[in-house]
């Protein structure tokens, strides 16, 4: 296979992966963030303590999270067809990817939000803030560095899952690696795919870490980073 033959394939695959991962990340964040926060709020001693709701949500999240993605994909076929009208292609792959990623992200959100100092919640209560104010002004902004790290982790996991989505004809980089590299012994193409994936994942990880760290730098836990101090002193 020549480069001119590979190029359109790879271009299309990159777009497919970006499309699937992008949409499913968006849905995972939109769905997982409230779910994760709800897990903290409804827990014993939480602001909206509701032990039954907490157990139910927790159990659903656990089951959804522990199912292997390939099984989830098959199990969700009816649901997927109901939503997208088809069970193959990029759009169809987004449904199981998002459904799998929501509980994954929700657990990460739960851990991040639990880290927020309860004293801050109390301070806002003492000011007359309600639960919604506490969520918006304390829980989310104070856990933002961790939430960004959680998003990065979710994106990387979704890139992995999206490779399996190739089996429902969704395309993407994983699909290329399997169809050309594994089934047709196009080793060159496979290695290029692997290299692209490695670079993409590293870039995402780097960008995520950078964003989380620069937010965390001003946080009370770490104190100002030495670099920041130097910059301040120089200006």
């Amino acid at each position, binding site marked *: 296979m020549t480069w001119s033959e590979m190029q359109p394939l790879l271009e299309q695959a990159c777009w497919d992966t970006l499309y699937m991962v992008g949409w499913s990340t968006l849905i995972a964040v939109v769905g997982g963030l409230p779910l994760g926060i709800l897990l903290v709020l409804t827990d014993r001693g939480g602001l909206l303590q509701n032990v039954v709701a907490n157990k139910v949500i927790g159990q659903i999240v656990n089951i959804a999270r522990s199912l292997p993605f390939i099984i989830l994909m098959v199990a969700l076929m009816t649901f997927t067809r109901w939503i997208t009208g088809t069970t193959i292609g990029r759009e169809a792959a987004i449904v199981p990817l998002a459904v799998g990623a929501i509980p994954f992200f929700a657990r990460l959100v739960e851990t991040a939000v639990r880290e927020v100092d309860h004293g801050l919640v109390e301070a806002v209560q003492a000011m*007359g803030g*309600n639960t919604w104010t506490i969520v918006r002004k304390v829980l989310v902004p*104070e856990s933002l560095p961790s939430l960004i790290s959680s998003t990065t982790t979710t994106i990387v996991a979704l890139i992995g899952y999206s490779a399996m989505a190739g089996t429902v004809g969704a395309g993407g980089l994983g699909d290329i690696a399997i169809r050309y590299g594994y089934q047709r012994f196009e080793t060159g193409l496979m290695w290029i795919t692997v290299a692209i994936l490695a670079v993409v994942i590293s870039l995402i990880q780097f960008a995520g870490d950078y964003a989380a760290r620069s937010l965390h730098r001003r946080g009370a836990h770490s104190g100002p980073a030495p670099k920041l101090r130097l910059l301040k002193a120089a200006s």
Partner: protein
Amino acid sequence: MHLCPGTPTPAHSTVTETHVITTTDLTKVYRSRGREVTALDGVDLHVREGEVYGVIGQSGAGKSSLIRCVNLLERPTSGTVTVAGQDLTALAGRGSRAGRELRQARSRIGMVFQHFNLLSSRTVQDNVELPLEILGKSGGERSRKALELLDLVGLADKAGAYPAQLSGGQKQRVGIARALAGDPKVLLSDEATSALDPETTRSILALLRDLNRQLGLTVLLITHEMDVVKSVCDSAALMENGRIVESGTVSELLATPGSELAAALFPLDGEASGEDRTVVDVTFQGESATQPVISQLARTYNIDISILGAAIDTVGGLQVGRMRIELPGRYEDNVVPIGFLREKGLQIDVPGRESVLVKEGAK
């Protein structure tokens, strides 16, 4: 409302007889995993308008539970809490699920915390603006008020800094500015200086004192340090095992025989030099401090008096002198001279003896 150096600070707080905080027979029982802890056991507290009121007690005495019941962060098991004439216990909503009325009432009560509880994701100014956001104030009004308050606590130049870039004392100043944002009549302080070094503690206490005098702010503060009570409080209460065992204005306390608080506020050392000698603690306040009573005593009864220890100090803005003297003979032999001292308007405590009397009196 600025605390400018030019504005003379009144020497005393302007205390009126109106009670701004009243708790009546307040109890709080925590139930966790079948175990019950009685943190408050019938607390009656009366804080007058414009005073600095200190509640002191050892760790676990129930101080935090008490102050958290005042703004209903913790709902009392029974009893009532009235702040500025409003019965808060009658308002709906448990601790976190407070109803609108209770939340409004809370916004008129400022609170500062031991660990400052500033949002690390917000700048100093944005932290001070937070209560104003909750009150629905406009952006312009919020920043004007926040800058004014930061100026008041001496941090005008730190508006854009993040809490992590501040020292402990500066963080607590921000905490105080934030607590004042809603123009509260009452400020609650739970161990606000306990995480600070002695010097910073003094400056924060001085700030609270100035706010009290300048703004007429009523301050209810909780502490386990006697020095805090000594330097800023007009009134104090001692808590033990969920009960208030002693309370009153500082001068009332100093005038109460056998008062543990008075003794702790103003400790005296010195042991009797022999078996047949009587140790007497004499407390002078105001007028009586100027009379040469000790020499009169020596002349009138022709006895030798040794002074074991003496100190003059300012307690709650009040000049107080204390002296520990030793008289020859046992207590029974000294009833007349001690009576003489009492007659002169001095407060007399006989260490070791008084507690027996108090206990007998209590029966």
